[in-house]
């Protein structure tokens, strides 16, 4: 698999796994509006994942479809960022995870619109508009929770401490990232850091939340080495397709 294909697959898997996680809220969110909100964000991410998976399948050139890639790969073949497979926790933890990812995707998709891969640039141009609404939603909730009651403030601050170390992986470049950067396909993740930090800092400040200290903590989901949570997600997501190959609604 070329670095180009691996890179597209990383983006696809990150969107797909986050969509699956957010889908777990359906029927369980604190209010009907949030049920709809989280489901709609999930749906956008799923749509983006499908476009990216199809493109990765074409780049790979082995005839794998979006469904083959989503339903028939094992844990170590999944290349999503480790942050998105972290459990939903309470509503506050889900919102913290969402702010961190939304701000990253927004910056990334804005830059990817200039990609030398025209298909990726098209997908990014579509996705960036949806991502703006995602961040509006998640940041809006983080403001209310962070600047809310003592209880809500303490919970989202704790969630922030817990999830913050996972952001290192989103914003650090490895070999694949360097190769696609050199080919003009994508910006290296570390070049997104200043803009991402500025955006996140502003949201945290408004939400009266304290930015956690930088840690050397490293995760390698995008290289296929995951936390213990991904296996359970895949087991649920893939069970129907594996039991009934090719099943359709």
């Amino acid at each position, binding site marked *: 698999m070329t670095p180009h294909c691996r890179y597209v697959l990383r983006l696809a898997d990150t969107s797909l796994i986050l969509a699956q996680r957010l889908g777990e809220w359906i029927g369980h969110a604190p209010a009907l509006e949030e049920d709809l909100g989280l489901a709609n964000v999930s*749906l*956008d991410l799923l749509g983006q994942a*499908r476009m990216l998976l199809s493109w990765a399948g074409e780049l790979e050139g082995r005839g794998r479809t979006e469904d083959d890639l989503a339903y028939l790969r094992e844990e170590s073949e999944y290349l999503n960022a480790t942050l998105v497979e972290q459990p939903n926790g309470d509503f506050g933890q889900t919102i913290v995870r969402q702010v961190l990812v939304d701000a990253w995707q927004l910056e990334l998709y*804005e830059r990817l619109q200039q990609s030398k891969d025209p298909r990726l640039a098209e997908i990014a141009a579509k996705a960036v508009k949806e991502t703006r*609404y995602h961040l*509006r*939603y998640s940041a809006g909730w983080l403001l209310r929770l962070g600047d809310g009651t003592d209880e809500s403030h303490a919970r989202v601050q704790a969630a922030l401490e817990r999830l913050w170390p996972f952001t290192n992986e989103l914003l650090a470049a490895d070999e694949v990232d360097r190769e696609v950067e050199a080919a003009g396909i994508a910006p290296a993740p570390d070049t997104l850091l200043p803009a991402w930090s500025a955006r996140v800092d502003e949201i945290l400040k408004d939400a009266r939340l304290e930015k956690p200290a930088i840690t050397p903590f490293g995760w390698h989901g995008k290289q296929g080495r995951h936390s213990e949570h991904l296996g359970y997600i895949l087991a649920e997501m893939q069970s129907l397709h594996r039991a009934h190959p090719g099943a359709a609604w």
Partner: protein
Amino acid sequence: MGVEPQPAAPLPMVLARLREILAGVPDPEIPVLSVIDLGVVRHLRERADGTIEVGVAPTYSGCPATPVIKADIIHALERGGFRAVAVDVLSPPWTSDWISEEGRHKLRRFGIAPPAQAVSSARRLLQPDPAIACPHCGSTGTKKLSEFGSTPCKALYRCDSCLEPFDYFKCL
């Protein structure tokens, strides 16, 4: 292998007929709008073998209505005596600015506030919304209840004057 003939624009009379047929194809989620009103039909071309190719722009990436819209378009054209295929058009991405003037009137009559402004600035989406007029009584004393409504393209609002809740078709 020779160069494949490029699809061409259909004759004006054919084009008018195609548009007439498509103006009768409703959006599955907001049936008061036709696919023409919604601005999702991006091109109509005639392939060398006579098949009509319809370019369809999805509204939101994950919108489940998109495959239904494509199937409905093909069926409607087939009923009208055409052979048709629908292809995705991703670029430029669909924008709510493409909803026709007539479409905006229809939305309002249906109880959905149409998108308030042209989407020109990317950054503006992170700014506060402009005042949205209630589609029932016209008052701009309205409040956003939720960023997402029954579909990704809509937000939930409530009018403080007539107290009715309503959907707002978001700018995209």
